[in-house]
């Protein structure tokens, strides 16, 4: 149970990192899924969409749900601030302490 929670939260962090690297264009969910699978090999599209939706509700990402069924994701201004450690991060995302700058 605790593992599942840690996994969900770290998955959210991976999504934020991916979208930060995909700036300024943003990217499709397939790429985010492939990236997530680089860390958790068994990550599924459904699981990823749940976390994307959570981040959308927290106004960290923008989602464009295309009629073809694909989701296009991009980071919002607030999301960029969270990834760049400019603002504090509320619980729910496994953002590690900023080990680069102490």
């Amino acid at each position: 149970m605790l593992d599942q929670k840690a996994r969900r939260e770290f998955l959210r962090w991976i999504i934020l990192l991916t979208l930060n690297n995909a700036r300024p264009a943003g990217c499709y969910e397939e790429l985010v899924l492939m990236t997530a699978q680089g860390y958790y090999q068994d990550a599924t599209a459904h699981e990823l969409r749940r976390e994307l939706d959570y981040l959308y509700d927290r106004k960290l990402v923008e989602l464009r749900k295309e009629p073809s069924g694909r989701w296009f994701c991009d980071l919002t201004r607030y999301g960029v601030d969270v990834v760049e450690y400019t603002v504090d991060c509320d619980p729910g995302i496994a953002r590690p302490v900023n080990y680069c700058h102490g």
Partner: protein
Amino acid sequence: MSVTLTFWQLITLLLAFFAAVFAGARLLLSQIDRRLDDRFLSLQEAAKAGDAIIHETLRQHINEESKNSGQLIELERQLLRWEARLPIDYVRREDFIRNQTTIEAKLDGLALKLDNSQTKGVEHA
């Protein structure tokens, strides 16, 4: 005034008249013939000049075409060379994002683990 002619005189007169008419007609016809010849000749020359112009234009077009096809082949070769060079010089955006993020995520995971083990160590001590 009355003119009297003998039969032979009349014949001679008529012959002279017809000869004059014949000569006149012949002159006229020969003139028409000559003018027609002149006209056909000038038409022929105009046609020849037109042919020459068309041939010249065609030759120019053929030259241009061969030059263009040469340039096209060169362009195609450059494009193929560029295509061959592309994967050596560049990495796909998707691949970069994936690799970079995976490395960052793994570093973050490592940082979390280190942090946890440090906390545990402090707790144990």
